[in-house]
């Protein structure tokens, strides 16, 4: 396998599709759900990329495709010079330790019949065949790393609090010493105070271990705190990516602006001073996305584009183009320079 670039993770034009329920070999392909529809992104070592978007826009599917847990229809995922999308199951299992997943709901992601210690010990057993005292030592050490009292090891998931469960989930992911953690909304099932603890823990772990994160979330506050760069996803496509500060100060895509304007502001006097338009309606079905721009059914700037630029958003799909260095937007309002 040849190496590509220096990025730890490189996703290019990745598509993930699900066959609709009840379809067979000969059914027509119109009902196919395009959960991820041509996504490209890169992630450098030690970097945190925040991936935001509404529920159902394909964020989690993208994360799982990167881990090889769902198959890609086309496109590729490269991890540290290896093409994950071309791997056999055996090769896949060898690379698994280096990319790990932190689940949204640790309660569901932990086998209810296993106690915390056995759950955390599992990766050590699988990858290093550790046993006895050595295993015990490693498990205790990783309990300490994630801020769990090793005495909790005998408890079953239902006997732990939500925050403790998520720490067990993180410990399980860290046990195989990964380079990349895909965090799939790791805080959205937790109380606010616990959310902050988990985010702080993830940041500390990044500093200590030099991890890279793909941090999937719909909570912009959390994303703002943890991310170096942010990618905004809508209906299976990336619509804007930029550094965290640029997104939050100068987000350009109408969808990014709508998301930002939906964040509650402490002082209502200063709310929405930038005149950003809220969006209306629901996300269209990913099995029949609009012909042109995916966002055209809800976009507040559509009239402007059609009147001023004379481009039909319903028919013509904008491309993701660089508007400034390291800032890409997919909207007709921002043509290439």
């Amino acid at each position, binding site marked *: 396998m040849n190496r590509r670039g220096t990025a730890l993770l490189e996703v290019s034009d990745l598509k993930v599709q699900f066959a609709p329920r009840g379809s067979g070999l000969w059914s027509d392909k119109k009902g196919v759900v395009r959960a991820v529809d041509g996504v490209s992104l890169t992630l450098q070592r030690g970097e945190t990329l925040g991936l935001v978007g509404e529920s159902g826009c394909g964020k989690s599917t993208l994360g799982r495709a990167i881990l090889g847990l769902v198959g890609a229809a086309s496109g590729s995922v490269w991890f540290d010079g290896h093409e994950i999308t071309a791997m056999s199951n055996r090769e896949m299992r060898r690379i698994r330790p280096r990319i790990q997943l932190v689940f949204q709901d640790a309660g569901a992601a932990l086998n*209810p019949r296993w106690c915390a210690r056995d759950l955390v010990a599992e990766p050590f057993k699988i990858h290093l065949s550790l046993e006895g005292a050595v295993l015990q030592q490693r498990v205790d050490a990783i309990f300490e790393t994630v801020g769990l009292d090793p005495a909790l090891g005998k408890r079953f998931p239902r006997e732990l609090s939500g925050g403790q469960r998520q720490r067990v989930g993180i410990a399980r992911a860290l046990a195989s010493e990964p380079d990349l953690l895909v965090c799939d909304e790791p805080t959205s099932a937790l109380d606010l105070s616990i959310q902050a603890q988990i985010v702080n823990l993830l940041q500390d772990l990044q500093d200590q271990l030099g991890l890279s994160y793909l941090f999937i979330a719909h909570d912009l506050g959390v994303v703002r705190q943890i991310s170096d760069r942010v990618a905004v996803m809508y209906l299976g496509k990336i619509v804007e990516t930029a550094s965290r500060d640029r997104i939050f100060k100068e987000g350009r895509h109408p969808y990014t602006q709508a998301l930002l304007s939906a964040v509650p502001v402490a002082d209502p006097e200063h709310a929405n001073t930038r005149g950003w338009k809220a969006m209306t309606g629901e996300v269209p079905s990913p099995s029949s996305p609009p012909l042109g721009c995916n966002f055209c059914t809800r976009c507040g700037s559509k009239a402007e584009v059609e009147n001023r630029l004379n481009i039909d958003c319903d028919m013509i799909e904008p491309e993701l183009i660089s508007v400034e260095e390291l800032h890409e937007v997919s909207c007709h309002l921002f043509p290439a320079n």
Partner: protein
Amino acid sequence: MNKTFQLWNPSLLLGLAIVGLFAAMAISPGLFSSQDPAGLRLEHRLSAPSAANWFGTDGVGVDVYSRVVYGARTTLATIVVVLGIAILVGVSIGSVSGYLGGWIDGLLMRVADVFLAFPPLILALATNAVLGRGLQQTMFAVAFLWWPAYARLVRSQILAVRKLEFVESARAIGANELRIVGRHVLPNVLDPVIVRASLDAGFVALTAASLSFLGLGAQPPTPEWGRMVAEGQKFLLDQWWVATFPGISLFVLVIGFNLIGESLSGRMQSGLHVSRAEETEGR
């Protein structure tokens, strides 16, 4: 509410006491009866219940009480062997079917459907007739009849459990398929199998007894309740005890198993299933 209370409710305790009593008889019948269950004493034939023969004697003068005690071993052995085979075969086929899916699943489940489509007793009768008379043949015939129920149960459980997130988590960790099925999926589908088995035990005893009643099962002199009922039938009007006591034993044993099964399934529905449903909905 309180799970310990739910688990140890009176009907479960009564069921366990009944089954425990018969199990003790099966393990050491000598403790319960000092008489020979095959000792012919023609001079005492068909004598009524008395201090010497608590349940009376049968047509060849054998003590009915001791035959009932020794018969417990036959019946419980039948239950253990039949359910053992049915669960082993059913769980294996159900796991393969549910986990692999595709045409293998279709094939195995259609085979199971064929079994389930027949009236159970007729199928057991036909199988038993083909295999020949005898206790072992009856055991195999009933097991042959029983496995599809477990295969279907395990398959449906596996279909539900394999989609749960902890299975995906194990895969993400790097566990191979064998480990995922053996350590994560199967242990989480066995509760309903155990409950089902405790409910089935009584019916297995009844089915085996029915086959023996019809002359196919255990052959004399092996004491077997179904056969004893059949033999006592011809004396039923004048010497009621010959058929009645083995019949009552079978009845009480079946009730015992059903009490256990009902309690366990009640507990499973209130505890285990609810928590699993919550886990799934919570996503």
